[in-house]
């Protein structure tokens, strides 16, 4: 999985950047350059997946790719993919990471869940003292107040949490193996979790690949939990973990109204702002919010025309593109360019 992810990132950065740019993306480096690359090359899902990735592990993979004739690296660190590498990249599956929005916070969610499950498991067994799986005082304090808020002493919380987890996992679009992986990172009374090494051996893959499968499952789970209202307990555990401040405040307010179903005109009226300002917000959304679809404003055929024109004229200048595509509005052109080619 790690190699496949790397191939995908390299494919997107092909000829434009150095190999280190890919490393910075995976590490989640918060420099202007990396953030800009994320937007330009549509690398949102990979951002900050492996904050602790050792450079040596990354370099070993690059070396392997070179040996496989997948890519060539120049002295300067710039690289280009070779035909074989591009073919391999084509064959990789689509992943559903959401690194841009979680940035490692999925581990906070899981630490909360782990300690809650461990506590409830011991309560079920009527065992009062155990050594908490999370040593982090802020996690412990959070879990303590969660358990108290839900009157865990009454003994109903187990059933509620079981029902929520069973229901969300049942329909989650991930393999049964990945669900098992997540469950075996949890522990309870006389039910120790499995180490990464043990899980990787069982799954016949590397530890890093198991960890990535785990992270992907958590990202999918978190997005599901936060979009629906059916999982109040899990939603509470996920509270505050999805990074929202990608947009300016004003654009965010616009986004909220849009999510409620208001049109551009209506949002302008409600917010007492000019339509062009609201349109700016939508362009911002298209640029930074990967889940925002421009479909309601531009058809796929229209978008394709814009890309073709952009390629043909070798430009992203609006004026020239508007000349070429007279039936499209400036707003539509900006949306397509902001979203980038997908």
């Amino acid at each position, binding site marked *: 999985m790690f190699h496949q992810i790397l191939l995908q990132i390299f494919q997107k950065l092909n000829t434009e950047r150095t190999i280190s740019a890919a490393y910075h993306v995976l590490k989640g480096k918060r420099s202007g350059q990396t953030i800009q690359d994320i937007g330009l090359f549509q690398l949102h899902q990979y951002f900050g997946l492996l904050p602790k990735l050792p450079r040596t592990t990354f370099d070993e993979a690059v070396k392997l790719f070179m040996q496989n004739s997948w890519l060539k690296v120049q002295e300067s660190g710039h690289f280009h993919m070779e035909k074989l590498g591009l073919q391999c990249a084509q064959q990789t599956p689509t992943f559903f990471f959401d690194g841009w929005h979680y940035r490692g916070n999925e581990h906070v969610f899981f630490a909360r869940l*782990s300690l809650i*499950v461990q506590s*409830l*498991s011991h309560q*079920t*067994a009527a065992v*009062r*003292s155990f*050594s908490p*799986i999370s*040593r982090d*005082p*802020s996690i412990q304090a959070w879990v303590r107040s969660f358990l108290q808020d839900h009157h865990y002493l009454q003994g109903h919380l*187990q*059933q509620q*949490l*079981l029902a929520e*987890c*069973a229901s969300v*996992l049942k329909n989650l679009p991930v393999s*049964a193996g990945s*669900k*098992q992986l*997540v*469950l*075996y*990172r*949890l*522990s*309870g*009374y*006389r*039910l*120790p*979790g*499995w*180490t*990464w*090494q*043990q899980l990787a*051996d*069982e799954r016949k893959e590397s530890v890093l690949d198991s960890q990535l499968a785990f992270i992907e499952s958590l990202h999918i789970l978190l997005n599901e939990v936060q979009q629906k209202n059916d999982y109040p307990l899990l939603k509470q555990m996920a509270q505050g973990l999805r990074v929202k401040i990608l947009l300016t405040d004003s654009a965010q307010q616009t986004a909220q109204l849009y999510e409620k179903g208001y049109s551009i005109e209506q949002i302008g009226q409600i917010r007492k702002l000019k339509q062009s300002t609201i349109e700016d917000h939508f362009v911002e959304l298209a640029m930074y919010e990967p889940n925002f679809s421009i479909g309601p404003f531009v058809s796929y055929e229209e978008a394709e025309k814009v890309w073709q024109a952009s390629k043909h004229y070798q430009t992203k200048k609006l004026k020239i593109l508007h000349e070429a595509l007279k039936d499209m509005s400036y707003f539509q052109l900006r949306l397509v360019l902001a979203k980038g080619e997908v």
Partner: protein
Amino acid sequence: MELEELLYKHFGYSSFRPGQREVIEAILQEKDVMALLPTGMGKSLCYQLPAYILQKPVLIVSPLLSLMQDQVEELKRFGEKRVVALNSFLSITEKRNVLHYLEQYRFIFTSPEMLLQQQVQEKLAQMKLGLIVVDEAHCISQWGFDFRPDYLRIGEWLSRLNRPPLLALSATATSKVKQDIRETLSLQAPFEFMYNVDRPNIHLGRIVLGDKADKASWLMRYVKETAGPGILYVSSRKRAQQYSEAFLQAGIRTAAYHAGYGAEDRQFIQQQFIDGELDWIVATNAFGMGINKQDIRQVIHESMPANIANYMQEIGRAGRDGESALAILLYSDGDEELAKFVVTGDLPTPQHVDRYQELLSQQVLPAQMLKNGELGETAFRVLDYWMQQETTEQVRARLNHLALEKYRAVDEMLKIIQTKDCIREHLVGYFGQKLQKKPENCCENCGIHYDEIKKVRLNEEKKIEMVLWESRLQQLLLGN
């Protein structure tokens, strides 16, 4: 009220464990005390009970945040509410509140780092404490693996303070370390209690083999034939990994255990071991684990321990239930060289001293060395402390001396291995005690009938199989 009654009233125990009464009585007579008690033998009670009698706050200095948290939680389980951990995890507001009401707590846990802060020192100077406890006091000694320079600075602070009695607690300490504790903390004619280091139910084997490869084949054969649960100590993470893989391939339920794993993984392994899902743990000897398993039957050392205290602590994990257990030390010629290499590996070198000086002269923070990974965290802590105290020449001499001391400790261990007399007598003597009685199957030199102690590994234990996620979820939350 009698001490026993108070013990029962506050903690629900009806009798003291060895040493507790003596230590508590000395504290109540306002004496300084140094108590050496093994982990899991009720060390904490030595200050917990006096706190209810003294009716003044007890200050406990603890070097490890996790340990502090454990102790706070333990007291809370006994129903104590007036307990606080004054450490770096508190927010500024929380800290201000805690400091403001500090005298109202019965138990104040804190870290050496915190104690060095001026506002904390000022507050404590205004208060009347009943007792100061220095937990894990061996961290004070620069000869120990856990040396914490901040602990030395507490010594300086304590000497300025008009202080109540002081209780220094530790699990193991050699006479050298004991002397360091006494001097650094300026203990006044302390009452000393040391537990009986002899563990008669642990039989001390020693097997001499040709080389590394002989050890490996001996071990493979041995673990296939004999029953666990056991711990195999090796000298590096890599070797722990290798042995663990080899054992697993042979169908033996094994896991490696070392500091390279995350906290969750370490706890999972401990739990699997305790629950009987693993028969062997292959661990590095540099890494102490807080494992509390009563029925460990075997502890094997594949390579030489760094010193006698480590050896005792490591074999001491066997046979906590009082039943017979076996400790086997494998030795081949020249093992002491590897041990010496390993023990000095975490010391700063003269090159590090130069580099430190160089950075200072370039007006770069020396901590840059640590960031660059030029040396380990412990090594940097040691170097940084002494460079602030002494000249470069003195530091160089000191580091050299430290290395020699570590070599000497390895040589002492070697003597134990090479002796032709009773190993047990030697070990006990090393801690300044006299062996009362030799048990049956005492040690390699007195003669061990291995067959009488070790159990044959019966049939292949069943490997734990994964269950479907739905069942696992159900088991976790509702039991089976």
